[in-house]
């Protein structure tokens, strides 16, 4: 078994509407895989099918080597937080975890360990209904970690967390990944995913746009040179000069964005000099995941 998740032609249709259409992708074992797509693109539907909560209309798949039509075979090794944390409001955080620990047959001692791990050791005895959104999210992550999972499926785990909470989740994911846990995480915080996810599955309108290594996706995108003339009056003149030489350019926020790799920097600089324009900065950049996402999804 080399994949934590593998799906082929996975499809879910609700009446006339197709929530997921012939999705095929693999998530390698031990990898952190980001799962991205605009709202309504089919991410949660996919996750629910992987967890046996909804039945696919078509297609096949495996999780940890077992068919998704037999979730009972792999779910004991899977931790999941789906579409936000859902718990019993009248029970404390600790008691909510104990309910799930009893249900899964996990040792009750894990509850205190996990509350400490997600920073809720002081509020474990407070009722869930008194928790802030961030605390609820942390409890959801603790619940997902109850089985000491080989695969962790997280749907928007940083929703509602403050910057330090987001950083803690990022570190937690890195820590778990270092221990060999496969992690499939959906998030709208693409900058976060770029930092932690070596693999990526991108959806749009129920179809897979990209599935593979994050690095491959980013490298496949054209590099950008950011050239800033010393004087703002030279912006449009410089853009024209570059366009006339065959470069694809846009002007944004006092900077000329040139679709070109770092090797073209000398040529661009020379053209500026020959046109009597002084550049105050010239920087070569690669598009971020967020920029790539917007370009690919047309959002």
């Amino acid at each position: 078994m080399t994949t934590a998740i593998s799906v082929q032609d996975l499809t879910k249709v609700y009446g006339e509407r197709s929530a997921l259409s012939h999705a095929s992708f693999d998530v390698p074992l031990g990898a952190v895989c980001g799962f991205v797509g605009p709202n309504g693109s089919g991410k949660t539907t996919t996750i629910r099918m992987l967890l046996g909560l909804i039945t696919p209309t078509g297609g096949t798949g495996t999780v940890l080597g077992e068919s998704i039509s037999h979730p009972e075979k792999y779910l004991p090794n899977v931790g999941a937080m789906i579409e936000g944390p859902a718990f019993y409001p009248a029970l404390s955080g600790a008691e909510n975890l104990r309910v799930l620990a009893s249900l899964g047959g996990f040792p009750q001692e894990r509850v205190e360990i996990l509350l400490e791990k997600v920073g809720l050791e002081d509020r474990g005895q407070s009722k869930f209904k008194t928790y802030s959104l961030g605390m609820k999210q942390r409890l959801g992550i603790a619940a997902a970690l109850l089985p000491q999972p080989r695969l962790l499926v997280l749907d928007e785990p940083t929703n509602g967390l403050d910057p330090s909470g987001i950083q803690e989740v990022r570190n937690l994911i890195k820590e778990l990944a270092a221990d060999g846990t496969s992690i499939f995480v959906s998030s709208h915080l693409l900058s976060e995913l770029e930092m932690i996810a070596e693999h990526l599955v991108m959806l749009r309108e129920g179809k897979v746009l990209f599935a593979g290594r994050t690095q491959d996706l980013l490298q496949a995108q054209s590099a950008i040179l950011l050239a800033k003339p010393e004087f703002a009056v030279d912006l449009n003149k410089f853009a024209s000069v570059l366009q006339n030489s065959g470069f694809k350019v846009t002007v944004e926020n006092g900077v000329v964005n040139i679709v070109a790799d770092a090797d073209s920097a000398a040529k661009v600089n020379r053209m500026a000099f020959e046109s009597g324009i002084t550049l105050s900065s010239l920087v070569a950049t690669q598009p971020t995941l967020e920029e790539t996402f917007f370009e690919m999804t047309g959002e």
Partner: protein
Amino acid sequence: MLNVTRAELRKLRRPTLLYSTILVVMLLTGLFTTIIFLRIGTAHGPNRRGDMIDASILSQPQGLVYGFKIVAFFLGITALCVFASQTAQEYTLGTLRNLLVRQPARMKILAGKYLSMTIFAIVLVLADALVAIGVSYALAGHAKVSTSAWITSAALVLFGKTFVNVLLATMAYGTLGMILGLLFRSPISAIATGVIWSLILENILSAVVSSTSKWLPGQNFSNIAQGGAPEVSYHWSLILSLIYLIGAFAIVAILFKRRDVAN
């Protein structure tokens, strides 16, 4: 399945649910038993059919369980509400997905839930029995009711039978609540439907067309608790209730097993 039961009992034993429900049951039982003993020999009597109960009736072995079984209907309604809310709230809170990820065998979830709620119902019936017997003994002297027949073997057998019958009736109402909870997936809708049907519609129907009462589920559940009535036998009520409940439960169990959990 036992893991599910253990998990469910953790939810059911929370003080606000367990103690408040037991308190309500004890208060109701205490109230009704007190009324029976304080109104002995009055013209209309406490019996719902208007029969007069006097000290000689209560001095017999059935005097021990009179208060106990008269509250069976309210026990049933309580069970209906608890079973319905405990089942339907999994949908409204979104916690069903957590349960199914930890226990994907959906029939085990249902069976475990049902077992835990059966234990809860046993606790309620025990509380009912204890209060009814306690109040009966406490008021027997005041009402000039002899208690010597209450400690005979016949009284103990009768107590055992009544306990089982009240428990069966309570479980029947509870099962109805669970069925409605699975069907409506909303505690408010399930409880409202169950209570309005049992408290109002069945009574109107049986009052308007008396022949319907032997076919109405709630009337039959209550008849089980009373150990049968001259108009409808105990066995008729037991068998018909089983047919209704098993049939309805099978339908909602299939729905529960097959339905996508999309919330």
